[in-house]
């Protein structure tokens, strides 16, 4: 029990001694002349809930299909628990997949669907029955055991697909857009259910999604992909607060991007020349920038404060006019137009009733934020 001193926070990727469960080494996958995965290297650790996030066609589904064994890398290798799995067919891998369409067998009832994989293992009858019952209980489907897939709802089908893929206790469970077919409310509930089941079973989950909110909610780490490459791999909060590129900042959540040129002020503080006739902006950055280098200041709308008077002692303050208001119920996003035409979004919580809103269209307002609120990005 040498781990007692280490923190209880689960982050094996920070531990140099930890052995990854899955290892992509310089994997390239081409379909004809199209490169789906471009020289990609990635480690995924045991018990992780890992999300592959990206727009459609970014290669995330190809990654998953390579893990399941339906596609083979053109170059490079994929290891599962230290073993190269290139030549292992799908039916011999300790990997199960939950399909986007759920792929439930329409001719079998729910019980037989869940038992399908166990029957292939020639499990003794009693063990098999016990395991199926356990899965039915885990996914709260006991009542539907004798129904056929077309006789249950979408959310229930989703749970059957999950139960079926978990029944064989795989080392790795792959989830291909598992919640895509569910409506928003059900999706949110199911996200928590998924996390709960992942924790209970201790299985490593790799989820493919194009929904950034879903990835942020469920995953321990998120890999943002584009055009077959990993753009950034980090925990959800780091992806959100410390994006490494404009692409990631823009893909995850709402963001203002202000382009300018840096000049160093202190050790890691910079002032940014960004528009003629506007005061320079101040920002801190851990990465260093040369004087006169092009930079992008990424700042989240909720970190921009909107006031009617000029705020005292603010690091950054600009004046503008309310161009538009997006009312989201709990939040309002103000689109403020600066004199040079730039639009900056500021978000505030609607703590008052809408009739008592402080600002309305065409009001002159001040926007302000601290030097540490934004992230300075080179590209």
């Amino acid at each position, binding site marked *: 029990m040498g781990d007692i001193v280490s923190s209880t926070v689960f982050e094996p990727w920070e531990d140099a001694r930890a052995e990854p469960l899955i290892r992509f080494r310089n994997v390239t996958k081409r379909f004809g002349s199209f490169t789906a995965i471009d020289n990609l290297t990635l480690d995924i650790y045991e018990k992780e809930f890992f999300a592959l996030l990206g727009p459609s066609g970014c290669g995330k589904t190809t990654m998953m299909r390579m893990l399941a064994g339906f596609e083979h890398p053109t170059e490079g290798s994929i290891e599962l628990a230290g073993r190269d799995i290139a030549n292992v067919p799908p039916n011999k891998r300790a990997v199960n997949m939950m399909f986007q369409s759920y*792929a439930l067998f329409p001719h079998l009832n729910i019980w037989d669907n869940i038992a399908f994989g166990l029957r292939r293992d020639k499990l003794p009858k009693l063990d098999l029955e016990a395991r199926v019952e356990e899965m039915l209980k885990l996914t709260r489907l006991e009542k539907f055991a004798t129904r056929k897939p077309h006789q249950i709802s979408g959310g229930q089908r989703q749970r059957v697909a999950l139960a079926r893929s978990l029944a064989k206790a795989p080392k790795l469970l792959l989830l291909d857009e598992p919640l895509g077919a569910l409506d928003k409310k059900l999706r949110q509930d199911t996200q928590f259910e998924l996390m709960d089941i992942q924790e209970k079973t201790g299985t490593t989950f790799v989820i493919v999604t194009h929904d950034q909110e879903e990835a942020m909610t469920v995953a321990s780490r998120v890999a943002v992909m584009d055009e077959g490459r990993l753009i950034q791999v980090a925990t959800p909060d780091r992806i959100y607060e410390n994006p490494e590129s404009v692409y990631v900042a823009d893909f995850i959540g709402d963001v203002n991007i202000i382009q300018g040129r840096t000049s160093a002020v202190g050790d890691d503080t910079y002032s940014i020349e960004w528009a003629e006739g506007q005061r320079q902006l101040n920002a801190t950055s851990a990465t260093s920038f040369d004087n006169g280098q092009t930079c992008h200041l990424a700042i989240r709308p909720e970190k921009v404060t909107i006031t009617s008077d000029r705020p005292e002692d603010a690091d950054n303050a600009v004046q503008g006019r309310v161009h538009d208001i997006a009312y989201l119920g709990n939040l309002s996003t103000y689109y403020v137009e600066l004199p040079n035409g730039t639009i900056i979004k500021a978000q505030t919580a609607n703590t008052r009733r809408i009739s008592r809103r402080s600002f309305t269209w065409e009001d002159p307002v001040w926007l302000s934020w601290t030097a540490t609120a934004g992230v300075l990005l080179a590209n």
Partner: protein
Amino acid sequence: MRRAVLIAIPYAWLLALFLVPFGIVLKISLSDTAIAIPPYVPTLDLAEGWTGFRTFLSELDFENFVWLTEDDLYWKAYLSSFKIALIATFFTLLVGYPMAYGMARAPQEWRPTLMMLVILPFWTSFLIRVYAWMGILSNEGFLNQILLWLGVISEPLTLLNTNKAVYIGIVYTYLPFMILPIYAALDRLDGSLIEAAEDLGCSRLQAFWLVTIPLSRPGIIAGSFLVFIPVLGEFVIPSLLGGSGTLMIGKVLWEEFFSNRDWPVASAVAVVLLLILVIPIVLFQRNQQKQAEAEQ
């Protein structure tokens, strides 16, 4: 009113082209043979009115049906037809399933062409195609010549005028009826189901057996009935390709009508054949209905 007219059209069609002819055949089957035109008695003479109708009815009897049970020929012919239809359907399935599977798995752009190739033979007369098989299967036919030339056989095979030729002819002729419904079922099959089966531990073959076959079952059943039902009463193929030993009820029927000129017995044979066919037709309809319900 418009609805009633719309419904009336198919019923009128059924009445005029099925029920009325069937009534006539049924009536003839209850008559007695006679040397006359038409070759049976009694005939209904409406001029004599009600009494004429009563004497007409009293002269009808089930003698011909009783006769069918007394002569071995008929039940043997029914049984032999049933056996030949069953075996032929099995072979058609055996040949047709891989073809349908191949079509469903072919690249999308190839499928219309393959479909075309399946349907193409229909554009030539059925009779000409059966005659062509006589040319292929006869002792001096193409098949024997090729096999002799290849050295596979040293003596020509006797195929024509045997049951083998009948099976070949039936399989060839009815293949499209088997392929099309199976293809339709396989085409609808979601490819991810096969992947799911493999993912859950099935080999390719197991996945085929446990997923593909059960899910194409409605197509297999529909195709089998579409072949079995017409083959049971088939006449052209056994009379052209079959020999004297080929006993099929269609042939017996033809001989009763045209060689014996015994219309009443021939009609009785036809009525019994129809009653026998009602069973598989009902089963076929039930299968189609079940499939339609499953798709909703």
